[in-house]
């Protein structure tokens, strides 16, 4: 097995992903609203950064944070709309199957399950990505797994 990469200094992580994150947010929210969401995305990442154990899936992680920050921003503006924004995760062949299996889960549960079991991120980091706590992330993942099991046995 390959040895896990050390967590890079935050500056390097930020410099590598900021343009992609900004682009994603501008496409979803427009240039003006993207600015606040951009700052919030990297502040969340910074808060959870010490909880990371390895550097293997930092891109998937920060893009998930950005998507959820984007969803939150959208909900704040139009609270009456029931949002069905799919939480897309960057596709990697090895995880394609798990992503496919989980595509009927509610967005938050799906993100928690994929980040936990496909990307092996710690719950504290998943909580940051989802804009919730470590406990809430653990509960979302286990709710997602229960839902998958029920579907299996159906």
């Amino acid at each position, binding site marked *: 097995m390959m040895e896990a990469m*050390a967590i890079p*200094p*935050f*500056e390097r992580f*930020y410099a590598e992903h*900021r343009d992609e994150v*900004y682009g994603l947010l501008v496409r979803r929210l427009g240039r003006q609203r993207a600015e606040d969401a*951009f*700052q919030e995305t990297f*502040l969340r990442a910074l808060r959870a950064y010490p909880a990371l154990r390895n550097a293997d899936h930092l891109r998937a992680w920060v893009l998930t944070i950005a998507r959820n920050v984007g969803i939150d921003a959208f909900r704040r503006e139009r609270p009456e709309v029931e949002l069905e924004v799919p939480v897309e995760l960057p596709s990697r062949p090895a995880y394609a199957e798990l992503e496919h299996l989980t595509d009927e889960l509610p967005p938050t549960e799906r993100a928690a399950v994929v980040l936990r079991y496909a990307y092996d991120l710690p719950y504290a980091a998943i909580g940051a990505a989802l804009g919730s706590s470590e406990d809430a992330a653990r509960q979302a993942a286990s709710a997602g797994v229960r839902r998958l099991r029920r579907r299996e046995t159906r």
Partner: protein
Amino acid sequence: MTVPTDLDNRFRDAADREGLVDVAYDLSDSPVGELLVAATGRGLCRIAYRPDAALDELAVDFGARVLRVPRRVERIRRELDEYFEGNRREFDLELDLTAVAGFNRQALDELARVPYGQLTTYGALAAKLGRPTAARAVGGAMNRNPIPIVLPCHRVVGAGGSLVGYAGGLERKETLLRLEGALL
């Protein structure tokens, strides 16, 4: 899509304001090349001649949240500029030496007392530390000095007066000593 500069700056300031930065740094031009200047909440913790490698070392020593936040090291940069212009002989800065322990730490504390423009030797520093035969160990401590220039390891030379060595390269050591008038 490139992040606008003002947005980038706002994020850096917000991160610092929220206390989420373990180490703040900036890059600074100087007569001895580009320097990385870094500080923790305790004070100046690093001056580096090789900024890229220093980022990784800072992450190991002080935490991975290493971020460029220019205003946090503004005062340090100003004092360095004054030093290089010949207008400052002593630095008035808080230092964070928590990453240096034991004999190396004692050697740096002793080094800090060597005045501007004066030379000392590895052996003389060792003697002051009560270990007259430890000149080589003093050399090792100088080699790993995390805050060169401010902690003046460039003022430490061999017993015969030869410059001997410098982690930043002998050329830089010579430049600093000429600036201080210690070399003709």
